[in-house]
């Protein structure tokens, strides 16, 4: 429960200081988001003249429209919307496949243990902590051999493979605390491997399914390394497009368009975070500490 020793509960001055410090930090944390938003609604002239923190004098949606539909990324001048949909095409199958595999793995590793199950789990788990630089070179070659280099399909494969570790960890920890007696009872009742999974375990797994989906969604959506290493041009995900837009645009820098594009890239994960922050945090925690 909440602590312990509320700092000077009877001292109104200390209390006020406490709230002031916390509010100050909140302002610092919100500042970049605020500046991003405000800038994205300003005309460029206003940006060059005015104060970064000031609200726009003349609100405009033009930067958002440009970012979405007509900003130039490389030689293509059709905005980020195509890359946004690329990201969706990558995220949806990658999340579903890695989630399903993780659920099955967690089920087998807790309820159908075999000799060596700990080693198998350890090997799978370690895969989510490796620096991905170690696999960039061979992966680029394998994707080429499979003819899925520079495609969203290729990125789906990559994200599934390197997502299995975390999804397995989540489901394993969740199912480890699922009573074994239920599985035993179902076996006596005559249920087999898949029946036990789909009828007994899965209906009780909603919380961990939500955690896994949110975690995988955030990770895959926010990925940059795989996207920039294995795709270019049309098949790149949104993060790569955003970076190209911001860091290689020639001529006058359109800061307002950059900020609007950054917001487009940020909105999906922000929405998920605001709607299901509890599950987001739970994923973060079990991704770092045991569940």
């Amino acid at each position, binding site marked *: 429960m909440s602590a312990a020793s509320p700092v000077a509960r009877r001292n109104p001055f200390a209390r006020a200081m406490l709230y002031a410090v916390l509010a100050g930090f909140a302002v610092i944390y919100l500042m970049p988001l605020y500046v991003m938003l405000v800038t994205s609604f300003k005309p460029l002239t206003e940006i060059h003249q005015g104060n970064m923190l000031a609200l726009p004098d003349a609100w405009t949606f033009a930067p958002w429209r440009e970012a979405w539909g007509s900003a130039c990324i490389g030689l293509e001048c059709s905005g980020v919307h195509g890359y946004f949909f690329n990201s969706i095409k990558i995220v949806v199958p990658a999340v579903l496949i890695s989630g399903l595999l993780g659920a099955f793995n967690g089920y087998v590793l807790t309820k159908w243990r075999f000799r060596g199950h700990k080693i198998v789990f350890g090997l799978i788990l370690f895969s989510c902590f490796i620096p991905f630089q170690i696999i960039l070179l061979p992966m680029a070659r394998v994707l080429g051999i499979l003819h899925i280099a520079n495609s969203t399909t290729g990125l789906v494969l990559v994200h599934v493979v390197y997502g299995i570790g975390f999804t397995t960890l989540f489901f394993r920890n969740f199912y480890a605390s699922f*009573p074994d*007696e239920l599985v035993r*009872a*179902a076996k006596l*009742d*005559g*249920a087999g491997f898949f029946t036990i999974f789909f*009828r007994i375990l899965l209906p009780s797994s909603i919380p961990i399914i939500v955690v896994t989906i949110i975690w995988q969604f955030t990770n895959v959506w926010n990925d940059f390394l795989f996207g920039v290493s294995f795709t270019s041009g049309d098949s790149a995900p949104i993060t790569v497009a955003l970076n190209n837009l911001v860091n290689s645009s020639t001529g006058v820098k359109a800061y307002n368009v950059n900020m609007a594009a950054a917001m487009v890239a940020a909105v999906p994960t922000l929405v998920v975070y605001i709607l299901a922050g509890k599950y987001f945090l739970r994923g973060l925690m079990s991704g770092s500490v045991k569940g």
Partner: protein
Amino acid sequence: MSFLHIHNIHKRFGETHVLKGIDIAIEKGDFLVLVGPSGCGKSTLLNMIAGLDDISEGELRLDGERINDLHPSRRDIAMVFQSYALYPSMTVAGNIGFGLEMRKVPKAERRAAVQRAAELLQIENLLDRKPGQLSGGQRQRVAMGRALVREPQLFLFDEPLSNLDAKLRVDMRTEIKQLHQRLGTTIVYVTHDQIEAMTLATRIAVMRGGELQQLGTPQAVYDDPNNLFVAGFMGSPSMNLVTARIERLGGELVARLTAGSDEVVLPVVRDRAALEAWCDREVIVGLRPEAITDPSSANRQDGVIHEAELAVDLVEPTGADLYVVTQLGGRSINARMRPGSTLEPGQRARFAFDVSRMVAFEPDSEHRIRNPETVAPSEPAVVTSIS
């Protein structure tokens, strides 16, 4: 041929030897209770009967058929688990009917069977609820319903009452016993609670450290324990176990016990022939609290009563009885007296010992010292009567 025959069963987990050759046989309709302290291997044995644990060595036969390697679902066995193991996502009806569904019993037949089981256990009104909405006692009934509905050859219970509060536990105990009498089913029941074992069983198997200590009727295990462990484990308050010296006094064999600064000399009447060999040596004698009473409530018809005067240390009324603590053989012992008695600590009082119920054990091996004709390594033929 017995109905359930457990023959020389061993269980090893790697280096650890969990069960060291268990032999138990029971008949159809028997209620076998496996009882012992935690870690004695009783739950492992039950899981092996269910087919949920592999048998390392030995043979398991049900109704003549060897079932060692049969899949749990094909053994015609149902089990009630300690945690009840109700499927959280299914209704009560779904839980009870799941086993039948897995056996592809037609829906209408299934519904009728679930209804019958629910009526038997008086849970018809709960059929549409989820397990999360039930009380502990209701869950217990559903778990039993799930076992009953399949009408198996053998029921297994794994500490089914240990999660209930004291009052409910007694009620459910009675109910299980009634169910057994009504349906005549064969049951193997695991518990660490010796009162549950005494009240329910037709056969008790006392286990410790992976070994069977004694198998017999509740009365036999209670009155005629095979060793010091069984004597101390069964019964509450437990048997008084004190050191005594066997001597010959004027031709009679007696047990001499210290009692504070005094001594008490009790005649040996039971297992006399065997105790002859222990003359002038120390043994451990056991006397149940109800075998030490006030002289007026002593059972002089069936017993052999010997009286002695001892100091009262402590008086503990329980309502139904009055337990008096006194010193004997260097230990505090319990005597069960008449409730209305006006004894006070510090006072001296007369105690009546029913020496016909006194049993003796070897101090080193802790084995029972028994007359040869009544020796029964695992199961005595009849309840040993007083010699």
